[in-house]
């Protein structure tokens, strides 16, 4: 049973990130949106790099582009568009929003 976690704050919101990470199951996915997109910077990859391989890591393209992150997305993340965002919510059984 897979859950999609939406996170919309920058890694500066450390307690939000730690609450979200504490809630992860192995096959869950994380989609960074809005200010959450800043999480793709290499400087923050330590938050994500030790997660199980089965955890999907995504960032929303519109938010990454708006914030000048297009050339700065860590290799850990897949950049997805709005259509793929919708698909992700279909593929996972529930969506938990962290904000």
């Amino acid at each position, binding site marked *: 049973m897979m859950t999609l976690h939406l996170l919309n704050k920058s890694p500066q919101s450390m307690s939000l990130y730690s609450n979200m990470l504490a809630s992860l199951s192995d096959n869950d996915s994380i989609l960074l949106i809005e200010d959450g997109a800043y999480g793709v910077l290499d400087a923050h990859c330590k938050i994500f790099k030790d997660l199980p391989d089965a955890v999907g890591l995504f960032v929303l393209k519109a938010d990454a582009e708006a914030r000048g992150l297009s050339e700065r997305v860590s290799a850990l993340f897949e950049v997805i568009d709005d259509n793929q965002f*919708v698909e992700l*919510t279909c593929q996972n059984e529930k969506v938990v929003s962290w904000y």
Partner: protein
Amino acid sequence: MKFSLVVHSSPISQQSAATAFRFAKTALEAGHEIFRVFYYGDGVLVANSQIAPPQDEINLPEMWQALAKQYDIDLVVCIAAAVKRGVLDDNEAKRYEKDSANLVAGFELSGLGQLAEAIALSDRVITFGA
């Protein structure tokens, strides 16, 4: 897939309200159903017809109104949250003896029961907050 969205975020001061709209539009264009959008907390501010954004900024009330008309979606604004924040339909304006109503046409004031129903009847419930 049948979605319901819960929007907590203010349409003016937070991006999240616009993300909710973009999600809804994308889902509808992809052939999914939006059962209900429930506006709660500061999310109710989107239903204020007195909002007058500058020309070069998005007008979320009008955008939701147009989307709801095109796809026949249910836009429900929590009545308690709305009244507290000065978003009133004719009934509430009368009840609270306010000068005028300002609820955007196409939105409806109702109770949290509508959220409970949306949760019960939707496949996915997505919260947009800030």
